């Protein structure tokens, strides 16, 4: 009878939500959704992230480094370039020979590829793509060399070099696109003759990578300010300033300062001046080492503003509502951000993409960590921003990270799911009077860490009902009578907990 009643009530409980008006009903349903998410999460999400991480290892490299990686190659050619400055026909000739050589190599390679294509059709071997990659890498390197050498043939190397570099960069980017995303150059030991080259490249990646971000970062900081300035503050009347427009290639060139003697490129003018000292004593004078623009300060310099080379852009001088950019840095970052591919992907979230490395770095600082989440799905990097958002909108509420709702921190989701039946089992063990301790110990070894969980030690059917049947009646007994039975019970009770090995024998007399 009792049982039926409880059953009825519980069934009532199930029906209840249906009767509730719709606006309130939404909450339980929402809740259940959350739970579902909880359960789906461990299997699905984990899997996803793992895959993503696998990709990551490869993805990152091919997309970012190639542009940087090939730069050193072009720098290798710089001695040639320096010679060209003097317009030496002999060097010109040797360069042309070099070019010829390279073109032959190129031809061979292309032949090879064509040959392979035919072969490949037959076999679906796994290292076919790898070989293809190697060939493509070779190809790229040769083309790069070609271009750089060709560039050095131009009469004035000063202007040509950035151009070359930019072409190289573009090519590199293009190249990065050519590679299939699932494969990469790094950490991969090819069973092929291209070994040396590939490794070379990977070696060269590092230094450029290291110096890249810090340089870019400082640029980014200045630039964001500058851009704001340009937007908010000054409204220079058109014509009151000189408009400069750098070409796309110039903008994308990594270096802005070049040595007039050797052509070496620098990211900072100060470093170039430092470099110049090596070219002779005349560059060591204080005047030469001083900041160049300070001299010219005496004359009123015309205000310079910059135009974006991209036609149709608001920052382009031909635009109706032209808004000039303040500095070269602004131009650079503007161009990269608005008119270039976003090639830097965040390694944490794998969704955010950036075209300026510094932007990625800034994002990565906040991505994933300290994510303040609103129920509407918006995330905030700062808690006060989230609370400001919630205060502003009706019905939005702070969302609690999923891992917190799961309770036990530090344990893997999978582990927790696996353990839960274990817990139940252990409680069952405790229910039965004979094996309570044995069960506890046994399970404790099974799932370590649960030992301290009080739930495991709790059994609603207490020890007194199992092992101490006598006690509850005891106070109603007369005192003298119970003494003997008492001592027996006590001894039993003592044996039971003390010998943790599970003395089922002590309970036998029952």
């Amino acid at each position: 009878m009792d049982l039926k009643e409880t059953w009825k009530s519980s069934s009532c409980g199930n029906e209840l939500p249906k009767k509730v008006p719709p606006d309130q009903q939404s909450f339980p349903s929402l809740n259940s959704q959350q739970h579902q998410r909880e359960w789906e999460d461990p299997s699905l999400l984990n899997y996803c992230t793992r895959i993503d991480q696998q990709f990551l290892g490869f993805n990152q490299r091919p997309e970012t480094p190639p542009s940087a990686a090939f730069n050193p190659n072009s720098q290798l050619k710089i001695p040639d370039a320096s010679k060209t400055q003097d317009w030496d026909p002999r060097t010109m000739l040797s360069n042309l020979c070099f070019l010829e050589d390279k073109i032959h190599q190129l031809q061979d390679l292309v032949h090879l590829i064509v040959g392979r294509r035919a072969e490949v059709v037959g076999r679906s071997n796994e290292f076919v793509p790898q070989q293809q990659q190697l060939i493509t890498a070779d190809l790229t390197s040769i083309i790069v060399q070609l271009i750089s050498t060709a560039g050095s043939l131009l009469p004035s190397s000063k202007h040509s070099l950035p151009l070359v570099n930019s072409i190289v960069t573009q090519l590199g980017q293009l190249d990065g696109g050519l590679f299939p995303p699932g494969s990469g150059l790094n950490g991969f030991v090819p069973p092929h003759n291209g070994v040396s080259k590939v490794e070379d490249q990977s070696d060269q990646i590092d230094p450029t990578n290291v110096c890249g971000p810090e340089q870019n970062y400082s640029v980014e900081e200045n630039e964001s300010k500058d851009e704001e300035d340009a937007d908010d503050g000054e409204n220079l009347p058109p014509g009151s300033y000189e408009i400069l427009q750098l070409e796309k290639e110039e903008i994308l060139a990594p270096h802005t300062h070049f040595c007039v003697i050797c052509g070496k490129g620098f990211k900072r003018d100060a470093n170039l001046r430092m470099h110049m000292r090596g070219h002779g004593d005349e560059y060591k004078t204080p005047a030469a080492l001083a900041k160049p623009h300070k001299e010219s300060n005496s004359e009123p310099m015309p205000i310079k503003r910059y135009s974006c080379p991209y036609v149709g852009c608001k920052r382009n001088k031909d635009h109706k509502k032209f808004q000039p950019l303040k500095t070269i840095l602004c131009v650079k970052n503007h161009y990269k951000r608005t008119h270039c591919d976003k090639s830097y992907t965040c390694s944490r979230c794998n969704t955010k993409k950036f075209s300026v490395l510094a932007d990625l770095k800034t994002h990565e600082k906040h991505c994933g960590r300290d994510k303040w989440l609103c129920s509407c799905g918006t995330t905030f990097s700062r808690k006060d921003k989230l609370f400001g958002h919630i205060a502003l909108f009706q019905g939005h509420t702070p969302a609690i990270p999923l891992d917190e709702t799961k309770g036990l921190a530090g344990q893997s989701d999978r582990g927790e799911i696996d353990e839960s039946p274990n817990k139940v089992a252990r409680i069952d063990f405790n229910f039965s009077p004979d094996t309570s301790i044995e069960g506890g110990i046994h399970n404790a070894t099974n799932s370590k860490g649960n030992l301290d969980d009080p739930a495991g030690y709790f059994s609603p059917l207490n020890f007194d009902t199992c092992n101490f049947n006598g006690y509850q009646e005891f106070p109603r007994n007369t005192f003298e009578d119970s003494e003997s039975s008492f001592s027996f019970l006590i001894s039993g009770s003592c044996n039971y907990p003390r010998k943790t090995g599970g003395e089922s024998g002590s309970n036998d007399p029952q």
Partner: protein
Amino acid sequence: MKKQKQTHVPSTNYFDLLSEEIVFSILDFLDDNPLDKKSFSLVCKSFYTTESLHRRALKPLRSEHLTKILHRFPCITNLDLSLCPRIDDSSLKVISNVCKNMLRSIDLSRTKFFTHVGLSNLVVNCVNLVEIDLSNATELKDPAAAAIAEAKNLERLWLGRCKAITDIGIGCVAVGCKKLRLISLKWCLGIGDLGVGLIAVKCKEIRSLDLSYLPITKKCLLPILELQYLEDLFLEGCFGIDDDSLAALKKGCKSLETLDMSSCQNVSHVGLSSLTSGTACLRQLVLAYGSPVTLALADSLQKLSMLQSIKLDGCLVTCPGLKAIGNWCISLRELSLSKCLGVTDEGLSSLVTKHKDLRKLDVTCCRKITHVSIAHITNSCTSLISLRMESCTLVSREAFVLIGQRCQFLEELDLTDNEIDDEGLKSISRCSKLSNLKLGICLNITDEGLAQIGLCCSQLIELDLYRSAGIMDTGILAIARGCPGLEMVNIAYCKEITDHSLISLSRCSKLNTLETRGCPLITSLGLAAIAVGCKQLVKLDIKKCYNIDDAGMIPLAHFSQNLRQINLSYSSVTDVGLLSLASISCLQSMTILHLKGLTPSGLAAALLACGGLTKVKLQESFKSLLPRHLFKHLEARGCVFQWRDKVFQIIEMALRSTFYYLQAEVDPIFWKLQLEDVE
């Protein structure tokens, strides 16, 4: 049963003529004693049903029988689970499934083991919940707060000491529970400006807000003070609040009636001066343990025209400050200067002569005042209801006569550790409304004075005679005869007290607290009398009653089924007595130190048999004598162990072999001398 039915059927049951509503309203009058309703329900089946339907509030002892009792009482609206040592998610599920929409209030303070899952269940099923108390749920985290946020009708929420809840969790509550009128976040150290600020922004209905000990600053104070209906604001121990933040008060919080700024170290009179302009309705102000009560501070509060009560406990007080308070144009009803340094006759006298309407005055430990102050107090404040003056040791014995002569409306009088003598007591016996009398450590009083109290103060509820050495059986006898309504009696260390006192006290059927610590002459016989006579006994302290043994425990176990707390240390109780006590289902707290006759096995058995235990004080030595799993199991049932490692005091005394200490332990006069030596 059958016979009864046959006799009943022909005769008309007059109760059948009464409608249910009428019976209900009769039952409404049975609220004083819970046992009365029980008796009523045991009369017959129809009474049982009627009573079951009538019951609104329930305070169960265990969670095991929740299903049954909730089915028995289907109309429960208020459920107090604070006595259940263990409430887990399944218990909450049972409650939510059975009570459903009926449930309006649930108290889960002091219970453990439930999580946000259970709370969520409860809140979703019991949509009419108005009140939830989750104080002390230190394990609860933000998900629990998010679960609470689903209680759309919630008006009152206590989260005291929920230290793991952060701004995020309280943010959910703020957004979800729009109807909140009261929220207590005392000691929720994880909550800061953002969470509190959001509450102030989202819950516009808030009347009472307790933010004590939160790391908040003025950032959240601004939106709080814009709350239209805010009446009570508690900012105790908010170190982040300073004068600068209080400047915001100038804009005003017109509805504010109570403000507690105790222990706000960074608030001075400068900040308080902004109170006067903005908070016109302020009635009660608590500035305990704050900045010194100087002239400047008193002046800054001068314009609070509605102020009735001010508490300055523990502040440094200056004479000009007190005088300035005396010059306020309002008339205070309540003044507390407890533990204030610097309270002198001059200052206090000038204050009390102006505030003639004082109802409550607390000058505890104002050690500088003498009979001059008492004369002024009694002269001007004749309508005093409560006077607390513990440890005003310079007040001479004659002064106490004045109290009886002039303040006859006194209901509460604390004269602990004073020079009062029998003449004083006789005079005080004129206060016929006296319900709470504390005469602890009054070494000059004897049975003669106390007997007079017993004769005249028939409404006495609480009597404290701790270490009042002159009191013997005749005094207690007079009290027991004259004050049948006694609920709390403390005769600790009155070494002359014997079983006769206890036997006479057993007439006081409402007695719920008895402390006879250190009365060596009391035996099991006296205790048995108490057990039989005082069935309401809840708290019992028989520590150092060396002559009480198992024979006293057995009647206690039989009759005192309401006993919740017992201290047995140093008594002669053994395993047997302890085991019999275990049958008291209410028993929650036991202190069992230095029981010579207690064996580990006996202790283990008693602990296991006593299912409702929440707190046990034990000797450290038992920790190693009993298996770890036993303690684990008991802790899982909701019991907390406190381990003490004190040497058995008699042995300690013997070792020191000084008569002085032995004397001091038992003899209050020596005890006090020793105390003064220390000082």
